[in-house]
Each structure stands twice: as structure tokens, then as C-alpha cells.
């Protein structure tokens, strides 16, 4: 069971009145960080709720740490740490009270690590939760999840609404968790800069469908914008794997999701510039391309 994939979704479907998540496949292995990226309403939170057992799929299978979900959620949850920005701690209780509470439930609670995190995040155990800022509240939630040393961390928009310094502190903790190759993190985010930096795998979803899920380096290697200058009247050579073209006078910009050096040889002297694309550019181009392909 220790060799089981940390997250395994196959053909998952979940229908609501105004929204359907369809045909979702997703894999996360031990030792990896996966970034889940999608526009608002894409189905990120639904996906996370299916993985954490808060929702049951209408069709398909959801397995987490080798356990079928949601049936075996009690077992799986011992090893899952979950933080969402919608979560609320008890406002009248102190941070320390929550630490004692979590420690009494989870055998894996590491008091030393908890103390280290409290210090690093500059939290005060004696402080009541109602006096915490948004950033401190998120840090307290993360401290409570991290100090249990769960094998799988699931973070729903963990860095949203945080200042740059707090984001930096959080990313440091996330990558620190991965020093241990038996652990993994799934996090959803709108911040493609954070995702590009720390993710090993990236999953794009849009309007309830999977757009693409693969290694980050694959995305960055396969997508390019190629700028050409075509003499007036000359025809563009036929090329496969071009998913976008924009023409402005003599200048043509091609977008490809399967870049290779052969492509440049084929285009020859017309090539003016070749640009790598940021994850954000890849995300937007990818989503627009898939919407077009589906006729939406």
C-alpha cells in the first residue's frame, strides 16, 4: 500500500444542477507537488472535495493513498492534511488550544516541529483566533496541518490574499516538506507564478473538464511562440501541431504545443524569433484552444 499512488482519479463524474465535472483523470505520485490550475468555477474545489471524501463521485473511481474514497475516508484522513481558505478556526479559542486539540486526535503530531513552525510563522499560542489577521489565520491552519506530518497535503488556494512575504514563507515550507520523498502536496491556485515555481506536475481544468495534466518541464518545453516574417504574397508552409496563428502584414505569430527543432528547419529563413512561454501564457492559450476545439 505504501507504493500506491497518492492520488488516483479515473473517469470521475460529478453532476450538480448547474455544473458537471466530467471524465476527470488525475495521478499524483509520492514525492511530488501538483499544482491544480483553472479559472473561477472550473471545478477545482469540487475536485478537491472528491479527493478529500467530502463528496462522492457519480461515476468513476477516486483512490487516495491506496484507499477508495469516500468509503475509506476515515482511514485515508489520518494521513491527509487539508487546508482551505474557507476553513475557520474557533474564534473564541486560542492558537494553543487548537494545537492541543489536534495533538489529541492525531498520533503523528510532532510537538517539536509544531514549535518550530509557530516560531517561523511568528504565531503566539496564547493569542485568541479572533485577533488574527487573514495571513496569520492561514499560517495557523497550515501549522496545524503540517505538524501532523501527513503523507499527503491538500491545499485549496493556500496563498490567495496573502502578502508577498507570507507567500514566500509558505512556499518555503511546502518545498521543505518535499525533502521527504514519501510525501506529496496537491495545491490549487490562481497564482501561476507560484505554481510554475514549485510544482512537479501541473493539471489545468476548465468548465468541469480536464484540459491537460503533465510534468511541468514538459509544458515549458513543448509550448513556443514562433515569429515569422513572410515576404508579401508567399504562402505559409503547412505545419502540423500549430494551434494558433495571428497574421499582421508580413509578420505571422505561430503558437505550438509540440515544439521541435525540426519545425524551425522546416520554416527556414522566415523565422525571426522563438519565444518560450510562461506558465500563465501556456494556461490561457491551452484553455482557449480547448474551448475552441469543443466548439464553445
Amino acid at each position: 500500500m505504501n507504493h500506491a499512488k497518492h492520488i488516483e482519479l479515473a473517469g470521475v463524474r460529478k453532476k450538480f444542477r448547474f455544473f458537471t465535472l466530467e471524465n476527470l483523470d488525475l495521478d499524483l505520485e509520492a514525492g511530488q507537488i501538483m499544482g491544480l490550475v483553472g479559472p473561477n468555477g472550473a471545478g477545482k474545489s469540487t475536485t478537491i472535495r472528491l479527493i478529500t471524501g467530502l463528496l462522492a463521485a457519480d461515476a468513476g473511481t477516486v483512490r487516495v493513498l491506496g484507499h477508495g474514497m469516500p468509503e475509506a475516508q476515515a482511514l485515508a484522513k489520518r494521513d491527509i492534511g487539508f487546508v482551505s481558505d474557507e476553513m475557520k478556526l474557533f474564534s473564541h479559542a486560542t492558537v494553543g488550544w487548537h494545537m492541543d486539540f489536534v495533538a489529541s486526535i492525531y498520533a503523528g503530531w510532532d510537538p517539536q516541529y509544531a514549535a518550530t513552525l509557530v516560531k517561523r510563522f511568528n504565531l503566539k499560542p496564547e493569542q485568541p483566533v479572533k485577533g488574527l489577521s487573514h495571513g496569520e489565520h492561514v499560517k495557523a491552519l497550515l501549522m496545524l496541518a503540517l505538524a501532523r506530518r501527513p503523507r499527503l497535503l491538500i491545499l485549496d488556494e493556500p496563498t490567495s490574499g496573502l502578502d508577498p512575504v507570507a507567500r514566500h514563507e509558505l512556499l518555503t515550507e511546502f518545498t521543505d516538506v518535499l525533502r521527504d520523498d514519501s510525501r506529496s502536496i496537491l495545491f490549487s491556485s490562481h497564482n501561476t507564478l507560484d505554481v510554475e515555481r514549485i510544482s512537479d506536475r501541473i493539471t489545468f481544468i476548465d468548465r468541469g473538464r480536464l484540459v491537460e495534466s503533465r510534468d511541468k518541464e514538459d509544458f515549458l518545453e513543448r509550448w513556443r511562440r514562433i515569429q515569422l516574417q513572410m515576404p508579401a504574397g508567399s504562402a505559409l508552409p503547412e505545419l502540423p501541431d500549430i494551434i494558433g496563428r495571428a497574421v499582421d502584414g508580413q509578420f505571422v505569430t505561430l503558437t505550438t504545443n509540440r515544439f521541435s527543432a525540426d519545425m524551425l528547419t522546416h520554416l527556414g529563413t522566415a523565422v525571426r524569433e522563438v519565444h518560450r512561454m510562461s506558465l500563465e501564457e501556456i494556461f490561457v492559450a491551452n484553455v482557449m484552444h480547448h474551448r475552441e476545439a469543443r466548439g464553445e
Partner: protein
Amino acid sequence: MHSGINISQTDARPMYLQIMEQIRQRIAAGDWAAGKELPSIRALAADLRVSVITVKRAYLDLESMGVIVTRQGKGSFVAEGGPAGEIHLAQLDEHLSAAAELARHIGLSPDELAERLRRVRDKQ
């Protein structure tokens, strides 16, 4: 434990290339001698706050260039017998092959390319 390597997100080069470049600089300058053990992939990823796959990619490429060697279960080390000069030569070859490719694209003959190199050098 700080490697002193920096990753910039405004740098147009991808992160794995920035890591490779900075490791090669340290070796070329003699700060990292032959046989020195490199940080483990996971340790360097955590230090730099980047994904493991990015550091893995940098190490694999450095290995295929002969700059470092990886011994299964032991770690990665600066390659033996690769004096700083050879790394500079490897860097030079990379730039030259990029120039050669560009020359091919614009239909320049090898002699014309060599002639242009000579002219560029004389101008310096």
C-alpha cells in the same frame, strides 16, 4: 545550508538553465573542485524553493554534458578530470553550435561563417 544559487523569475531563461549555469560557473571558477559532492536534488530544490523536477532536469543535463557524475544511491559529484578549461570549452562549443545552426538557417557557408567570426574577433 545555502548553496548561494539564485533563481530569478524575471530572467528569460528557464529555471533549470539558471541552475545549470550557476553550477558551471562555480566549477569553472574552481570553487567547486572535482570530486566535490553536490547537494542532493531534494535538498537543493527545498533550498531554492523550486520543484524537484526542475533540479532533476538541471542535474540530468549537467550529467549528459559530463560536468557532473551521478552514482546510484551515493549522490552527484563534480566530474573528475574535467579541469575548468574544459568546461569553458564546452560552453564555447554550445555558443558555436548555436551560431552554426543560425548560419545554416540563413544559408551561410562554413567558410563565410568562419570569416565572420574572424571579423567579429578582430573588432574586439
